[in-house]
């Protein structure tokens, strides 16, 4: 059924008139509520008009000035600005993650990318602890996408280290620490194996995410199939699990596996967009996740009971303030800001 063409005009007009009257101090609350009660459409247009006018009213002089710049630049630069620069050093390439960032901001990103690349190449030449392995690492708050020789892409999250060694028969990758999402290009002749702790995750052509945080490893498969085997004394053991798209497994340090169904696939890869997504997770876990992205200030919870409270939300990884704001709405929570840390505690 096709929805009838909507005409916002008259109701929007009335809604704006109501808002105007209140802004001029001539509002009549009971009359406004009577008008709103007439139809849900009135409520919708009122909320839209209020949202629009309040948002415009909040534009500060700087933003109005930049609006003028925007207007004049629109005439010249309507062309698309999607530029991905795959720089290729000897064996892998890296580029900064650019999610639809406008043209004029690319230059800075590009320079950052080049600097990161130089550091990376330097790190690769001078700090290669395991012979034959190329090491790639990200720092706190840093994320990076690396294109491997075979065209597979590794999106590395913050504080992560990956080592790569390709041969004619096999593509070996080690996730030493942190989290990475692998989009593996198909090559039936050369299996792609990721070594984590003492497990091997083997894929042919697929997309999966691995997170290793010292105590356990979590493998989430978004596409295709992967096999997990135990790595005993450097030789791969027998197959212990096969994971399909939409499945997730938690591997404990002793090698025991817990299977889980992936409830929200988009949450697994959300970190690539520097989004932290929590579904009914403890504050303790949420805070630990935020702290992975920001070196200073670090968040600290000063109460076990508080740490066990559960929250659902989606945050920008660098916007600690959003979390702090959310917590400030709790009646019994105080947030103290110090230079080095932000302490969250229960009110005495």
């Amino acid at each position: 059924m096709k929805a009838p063409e909507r005409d916002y005009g008259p109701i929007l007009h009335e809604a704006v008139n109501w808002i105007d009257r209140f802004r001029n101090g001539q509002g009549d609350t009971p009359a406004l509520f009577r008008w709103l009660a007439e139809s849900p459409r009135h409520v919708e247009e009122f909320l839209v008009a209020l949202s629009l006018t309040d948002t415009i009213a909040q534009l500060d002089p700087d933003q109005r000035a930049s609006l003028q710049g925007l207007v004049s630049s629109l005439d010249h630069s309507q062309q698309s600005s999607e530029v991905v620069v795959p720089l290729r050093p000897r064996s892998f390439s890296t580029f900064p993650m650019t999610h639809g960032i406008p043209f004029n901001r690319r230059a800075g990103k590009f320079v950052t990318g080049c600097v990161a690349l130089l550091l990376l190449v330097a790190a690769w030449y001078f700090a290669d602890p395991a012979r034959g392995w190329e090491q790639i690492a990200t720092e706190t708050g840093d994320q990076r996408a690396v294109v491997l020789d075979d065209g597979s892409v590794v999106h590395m999250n913050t504080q992560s280290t990956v080592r790569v060694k390709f041969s004619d028969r096999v593509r070996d990758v080690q996730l030493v620490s942190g989290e990475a999402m692998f989009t593996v290009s198909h090559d039936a002749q050369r299996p792609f194996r990721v070594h984590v702790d003492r497990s091997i995750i083997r894929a042919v052509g697929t997309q999966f995410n691995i997170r290793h945080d010292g105590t356990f490893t979590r493998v989430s498969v978004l596409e295709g199939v992967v096999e997990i085997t135990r790595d005993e004394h450097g030789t791969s053991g027998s197959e212990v699990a096969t994971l399909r798209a939409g499945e997730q497994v938690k591997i404990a340090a002793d090698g025991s596996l817990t299977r889980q169904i992936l409830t929200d696939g988009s949450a697994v890869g959300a970190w690539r967009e520097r989004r932290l997504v929590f579904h009914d997770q403890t504050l303790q876990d949420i805070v630990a996740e935020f702290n992975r992205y920001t070196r200073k200030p670090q968040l600290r919870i000063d109460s076990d009971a508080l740490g066990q409270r559960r929250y659902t939300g989606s945050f920008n990884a660098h916007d600690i303030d959003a979390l702090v704001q959310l917590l400030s709405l709790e009646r019994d929570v105080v947030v103290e800001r110090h230079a080095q840390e932000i302490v969250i505690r229960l009110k005495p």
Partner: protein
Amino acid sequence: MSAGDAKRRVFVAAAHELYAQDVRNFFLRRLRNAQDVRELTQEVWTRLLRVQRPEEIIEPFAYIYRAAANVLAEFRMRQRKERVEFDSAAAEYISEHPDSPPANDPASRLAIQHEIQQALAVLPAAYREILLLRICDGVSFADIGKRLGFSAGTTEQYFFRALQRLRALRTED
């Protein structure tokens, strides 16, 4: 007024702003599902119907924002598997101003302002000028008209047309 009272007022204002921002984000985001909007406003409407004594409401806009934010929160709880949209505008802003996201200025607000700026930028110049003078500076239609060389009536007409255009952009889904 005691220091405690002052603190409390700042807190209430911040809380109110957060609720209001949530509602604004919902209504102004592009790609918003029209079905969701209808369902949500229907629910807000039934709540407003239950208001017994509207004359006792001191801040009606704050009250309505709050009601809508509550409905929105419950709506999200029901929809648990809400799709996550990447706030590229917010991320951009933060990457450019790493040191200065103002304390009570959530990224979402910046993202919306960024989108509104884009939408304003494509309006005819006269429409944009009228909107800004009226909404940001509170200038009357007659005075705006005088400045731009229109009658007060024409200015008002343009003002509503401009809002309608922005509104139509918002529902492009």
